[in-house]
């Protein structure tokens, strides 16, 4: 270890103690990747601050020693955003999990970044409120991570993304400066710029949020959830389009394919989805009782006109939870298919869903990978999931190549390489599918305003100038993980 690094670790350990400054290899193992397991690299150390003051202290020390760092929430991200790309220190916000303030009348809350998404909703439930963004990982993912990634979830179709619910944040910039963006009255101050909106989704490359003020949403008066099963994916997508074309705005419109249904029904997330369906469409309607009942009737009619095999309507909270259990547990259920899961996150215009899904199926066959689909149909946000064995380098390469081709297909259809998971390290090479060198130059200028030395979550979001094939390096990374003692690539 370099003497300067030794001095840094000494100072961090003195400040945070050995339990909150982890440097032992076995303690760092859990930090070598997030939910994107293809890319792994252990950090130099992990620091666990508990409040803003401690984050400022840690970042100032790191800045003084010119050591890079990255902020980490629960590590549930699916694009490698919380995985080091170079030797650095992780600032883990797991101990920053206090709800600092709730104002039920203004419908806002201020929380530390480590508060778990679902815990915030539990915290404000007594006021008839909830926090609307609900990623599938909401029982473990954190508000800080959601802010960094601009997370979505099934209810985005009606309620928007994280950015639509964040009013402000206290942020520690990479040099240790504490800055307040937005506030309880709105993300943009009168006469100022919407730096809150710019910070949201910057994937931890602009700084680390230590207090976040969010908008809370009122619980709907009534909720109706329907599960319609279809003989073909085309019919399921058609029903989804018919619902939107009819002028309805459901809270959620989700589709799961046959393979996903099979995995769910064989797992602990079993929800009673019909085994004979080629696809199921999960529709949730919420609002005033008079409206949801009328809208549910219309959804039933539209699904029937698409030859739905069966339609189950859930009115009670228990039945609704059961129907959602399968959808929310879908990624967990995939664990039955193989040891690893690569979750893609492409977006297409909703009207291009079925064509794109057919192309994705062909890509899966071409690369001989096991593909399943579970997706936010209302938003056109696809999640093709590839189950694979990460210990098999050749299979991993096929998985990576299939993923690249799928995202290329999404962009060609007028869509995006990511709807809610972010670029992270996973999609650095895919960025060029969407953005020109000029687009990236402007983004680089913006990043330099917040992070001029590039030491805050380096190697994320924007591809490095000298890299022509970031994706191509993953198998090398995999090889390194498999054989740490082997030659450096």
């Amino acid at each position, binding site marked *: 270890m370099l003497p300067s690094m030794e001095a840094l670790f000494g100072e961090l350990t003195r400040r945070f103690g050995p339990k909150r400054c982890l440097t032992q290899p076995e303690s760092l193992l859990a930090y070598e990747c997030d939910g994107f397991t293809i890319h792994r690299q252990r950090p130099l150390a992990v620091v666990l601050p508990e409040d803003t003051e401690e984050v400022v202290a840690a970042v100032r020390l790191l800045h003084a020693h010119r050591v890079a760092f990255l902020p980490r929430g629960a590590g549930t991200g699916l694009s490698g955003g919380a995985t080091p790309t170079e030797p650095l220190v992780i600032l883990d916000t797991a101990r920053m999990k206090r709800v600092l303030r709730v*104002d039920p009348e*203004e*419908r*806002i809350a201020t929380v530390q970044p480590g508060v778990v998404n679902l815990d915030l909703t539990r915290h404000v439930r007594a006021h008839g409120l909830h926090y609307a963004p609900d990623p599938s990982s909401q029982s473990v993912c954190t508000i800080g991570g959601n802010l960094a990634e601009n997370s979505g979830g099934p209810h985005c179709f009606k309620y928007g*993304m994280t950015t*639509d619910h964040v009013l402000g944040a206290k942020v520690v*910039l990479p040099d240790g400066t504490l*800055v*307040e963006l937005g*506030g*309880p009255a*709105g993300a*943009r*101050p*009168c*006469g100022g*710029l*919407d*730096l809150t*909106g*710019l910070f949201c*989704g*910057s994937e931890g490359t602009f700084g680390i949020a230590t207090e976040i003020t969010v908008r809370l949403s*009122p619980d709907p008066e009534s909720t109706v959830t329907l599960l319609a099963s279809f003989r073909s994916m085309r019919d399921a997508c058609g029903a989804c389009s018919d619902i*939107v*074309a009819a*002028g309805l*705005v459901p809270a959620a419109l989700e589709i799961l394919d046959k393979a996903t249904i099979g995995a769910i029904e064989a797992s602990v997330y079993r929800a009673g989805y019909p085994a004979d369906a080629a696809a199921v469409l999960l529709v949730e309607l919420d*609002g*005033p009782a*008079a409206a949801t009942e*009328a*809208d549910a009737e219309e959804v039933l009619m539209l699904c029937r006109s698409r030859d739905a095999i069966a339609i189950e309507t859930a009115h009670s909270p228990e039945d609704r939870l059961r129907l959602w259990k399968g959808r929310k547990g879908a990624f967990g259920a995939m664990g039955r298919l193989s040891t690893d899961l690569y979750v893609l996150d492409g*977006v297409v*215009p909703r*009207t291009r869903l079925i064509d794109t899904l057919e192309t994705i199926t062909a890509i899966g066959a071409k690369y001989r990978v096991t593909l399943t689909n579970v997706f936010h149909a209302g*938003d*056109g946000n696809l999640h093709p999931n590839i189950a694979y064995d990460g210990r098999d380098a050749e299979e991993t390469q096929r998985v990576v190549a299939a993923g690249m081709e799928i995202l290329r297909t999404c962009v060609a259809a*007028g*869509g*995006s390489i*990511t*709807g*809610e998971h972010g*670029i992270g390290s996973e*999609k650095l090479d895919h*960025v060029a599918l*969407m*953005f*020109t060198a000029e*687009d990236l*130059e*402007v*983004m680089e*200028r*913006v*990043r330099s*305003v*917040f992070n001029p030395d590039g030491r805050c979550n380096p190697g994320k*979001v924007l591809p490095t100038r000298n890299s022509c094939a970031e994706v191509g390096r993953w198998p090398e990374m995999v090889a390194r993980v498999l054989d740490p003692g082997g030659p450096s690539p």
Partner: protein
Amino acid sequence: MIPGTPLDYPVVGMTTVSDAAQLRDALAAGDPVRLVGGGSKQLQLPAPDQPVRLVSLAGMDRILRLEADDLTCSVQPGVQRRELDAELADRRLCLPCRGTGTIGGIFAADAEGPSGAGQPSPRSLLLGVSAMLTEGLAFKSGARVVKNVAGFDLQKVFVGSRGRLFAVTELHLKLRPIPRAELHFANRDLTTVAALDLARRLRATSTPPAWLELLGIRDRVTVQGTLRGHPRHLDEFAGRHGLKPCEALPVLPIVAGEHREVVRARSPFAAVPRLLERVPEGTLFSVTGSTFTVAVPPPIADALLALLPELQGSAEIVAGAAPRRGACSARDPHAAQLEHALRHALDPRGVLR
């Protein structure tokens, strides 16, 4: 210089552009420029600090695509709101935010700010932009689809930037179906206490009005707004809360006059009584969402600017004499530095004024 809009700041000329190439040429000289759309909001924005040439984007006025089934459209910045609304109405769609003038102007000015409960703010409707820096570099941010997190969200920081960061050449917008029913209401001549109480009750419902405004003078306040949704629900909601349906909402513009300037403040709703304490008897005020608007003499305007940070809000003089327009309440100096650095990074020559 702009037909129908007498400006109160020095202008050295005007160029109307109709495409990106003309825009690039107009910006190339590097002399101070004020970007405008139709010009209708110029007297609500800070005056430039030196003589400027107006570059009007009003000639970029095409609706480029309208993908009704995907609930999206792409337009050039000079498209008039009323024209877009007409096109959308034919397809039973709408852009669910308030604002008049050009589409580019609505987003660049973001005059309404976050409108509050029930209605999306412009920032949540802007999916992406194509844009140009003053040095002529064309770039894009965001996407055309309703969900996207690729890259940094420069379109977010464009909203409310007043054309001081870059010029947009294309805006990708999120649309909504036209509401199934709409009901306007106006409960007039309420005491301030009764008006605030009614507004609080409406805001506390699970389906607050899509638009809610308190308008009037102290103790003669109208609580008015618009309910949107299913017809059965609207009637029931209006009945339950004692709302009085009306044909159209009264409009009482709050304007500057001799010795009066318009202050727009954003604060938590609970701060409204404290703001009203500072306003002289008989002064017309409006509260929409988190936005409080009032026309007051300069010393009171200054007092409001000074008060807002204490109330966890901010304020700005948005109409009045040119030298005072744009004065803001104090905010975090580090945030102000970041804003300055961002402007410098995107417009290093300081062309946009």
